[in-house]
Structures are given as C-alpha cells and as structure tokens.
C-alpha cells in the first residue's frame, strides 16, 4: 500500500502492524480511531509530506521519497534521534530480556545460544556507542545491519541443540523487527 493524506491511519497499521513502532516516535499510540493521515497531522502539528514519506519508506522498499527528507532536515534529525532512543529503551532491552529467558529456559546446555547472545551483546555495544556519541550528522549503520542479518542466519540456518521453541521464536521475531527498523533507518540516512 502507498500512504497519502487521505489514507486512514488504522488501515496503515492493520496492513503493516510493525509501523506502530514508527508512530510512537511521533507520540501516536494505539487507539488511533478513524482519523486520516491529514487529520492526524493537523491535530499533532506534524508536517504531512515528511510524515507520509516516513511511513511509505518504512512500508515499501521501492518507495523513493524525492526531496521530502532533504527539505525537512530538522524533522528528520529529530525522527532519527528518537529512533535510536527507541532502540535503546525498548527494542534492545526486549531482545536481551527474551534472550536471557531463552537461555535460562532451554533445557540442558546449549553453548551455541550463549555464543549467539554474546554476538548480540557486541551489536548492543556498537549501538550504545552510537547512542552515546551525541550524533550531529546521521549516517547509515551498515555494520550493525550486517551483524543483525548474521544473527538471523545463525538462528534460521545454523541453530542446533535443544532450546525452548516459543522463546526462540520470540527472540528471532524481535531481532527481525530491529533489523527491519535499522534497515529503514539506513535508507532514510542515505536520502539525506
């Protein structure tokens, strides 16, 4: 789907539920009612062209936002800053919590999971450096995206031994969510 000013925002969320993470960076939370994008932007004082470009960039890998990001530099910087704060406060702790539980609950000893968690900690540290560096100019974080791809491959292709299936899937889905978000973060940076 391609979002425009007259699109109902709930249709966007139902079509792409993970976009709730993006909306939260504009202080838009669940229970959004029947508002269109235009109505929501008017109510919250959000620049609609920029908002629509963010949503479409997140939804579609083929979407090219033209000048929407270059012309709204301040809004983009604010959005990207909130994005990495969101990783720090929500996504990373969520993955870590599930990873810890996965290792704790997986019957027997699965040293592979511990190795993979250590690899996740390496990603976490790399992201923490970025968060604490008080970034003035936002750049793509390709190495972090690559490492998340690697971690997904480790789960999907190479995982062996015994483990709790439900928790393992929960960790994997959380990592895939972060990877998707970082991939879109990188795309936005490349348009600046």
């Amino acid at each position, binding site marked *: 789907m391609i979002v425009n000013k007259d699109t109902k925002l709930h249709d966007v969320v139902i079509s792409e539920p993970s976009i709730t993470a993006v909306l939260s960076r504009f202080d838009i939370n669940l229970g959004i009612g029947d508002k269109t994008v235009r109505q929501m932007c008017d109510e919250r004082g959000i620049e609609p062209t920029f908002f629509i470009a963010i949503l479409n960039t997140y939804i579609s890998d083929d979407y090219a936002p033209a000048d929407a990001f270059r012309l709204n530099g301040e809004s983009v910087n604010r959005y990207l800053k909130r994005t990495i704060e969101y990783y720090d406060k929500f996504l990373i702790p969520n993955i870590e919590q599930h990873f810890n539980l996965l290792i704790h609950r997986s019957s027997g000893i699965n040293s*592979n999971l511990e*190795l*993979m968690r*250590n*690899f996740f900690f*390496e990603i976490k540290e790399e992201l923490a450096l970025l968060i604490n560096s008080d970034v003035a100019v936002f750049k793509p974080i390709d*190495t972090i995206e*690559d*490492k998340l*791809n*690697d*971690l*997904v*491959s*480790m789960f*999907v*292709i*190479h995982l*062996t031994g015994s483990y709790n299936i439900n928790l393992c899937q929960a960790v994997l889905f959380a990592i895939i969510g972060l990877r998707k978000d970082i991939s879109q973060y990188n795309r936005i940076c490349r348009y600046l």
Partner: protein
Amino acid sequence: MGNIKIAIVTADSLLYLGIRYILADIPAVMTTHLRCANDIVNDNPDRYDVVITDAETCVSYSDYFLPRRHKTVVITSQDTGNSSFFSVDRCAAPSVIAERLIDYIDRLKDSVTSQSELSQREIDVLKLVASGKINKEIADELQISINTVLTHRKNITAKLGIRSVSGLSVYAMMNGYLTKL
C-alpha cells in the same frame, strides 16, 4: 568428493613433467599423461574432471575441447586474454604457473562440493578469518592469491548467510573450527 582426475594431454614431455611436478603437491589429485588427444577423444571423452593441454593440441582438436572449455586448461606461450579457455602462460615463472593451476583446481574442488556445505579450503579460510587474519596473511599462509581468498570469502558468506568477521568467528566456534576468540 573423491580425487580430481586430471589428464595432461601433450606430446611435449618437458611440459608434461613440469605440470606433473607442480600438481604433485596438491592433495586429492590424480594425473594421467596422454601423448595424443585421440586417446581421450575416442574413449570415454568425459572421464576426466580437468584436461590440461598445450595450445597446438587444443587447436588441432577444437571439436573436442571447445564444448569442454569449462574443464580445459591451455598451456600457451602467448597472451590469450580473449580466449574463452582458462590459460596459463608457460613462459611465466614456475611459482606463477603453480599458483594459477592451484587456484583453478581449488575453485574446481569448491564448485563440486554441496552448494551449502563448506569445502575443506573454505573451512581453512574461515578458520583464519575467524582468528583475525587479514586477506594478505591468509593468502600467504595458504599459498594462494588474494583474489582466491576473496572468492572463498564470498562463497563462505553465500553459503552461511554470515558476512561480518565476528559473525564468522561465532559460526566457527559453534561448529568447533575455533576453540576461543
């Protein structure tokens, strides 16, 4: 995979001896000398994995060699940059000839292993990457060119879905190729 069967097809005894000397150091390779291409053309023509021949023989038996160019190495004394054959300059230094032939056979070995399984050479490269070696050091240690190291690394990533050095290190540890970082 089993041994790689290589036929050296040439009437030039000196050339044959030189090639055999170089190939003697490569494990899992079996060589046979045929002085005349008729022996291979008329009897089970695809029984060899690789055929190494000289330019004259290649031209004389082009009906045989052209359809098999992907498994033919031509030892030539002139630049054949435009040739569709993999060629080796016989005037080059012996070490250069050896490196080029070893590269070719390494790649052949890799191409016949399972599409998702790492070949022994790829495992060798993986271990060195995982232990923090740079491409030049890996090339020196395995006595292969940097281009071959890059090809192996590309194949490793394609097979494992893992690109970063630290990710490869974790994979190596998960599979017992490395005991500690």
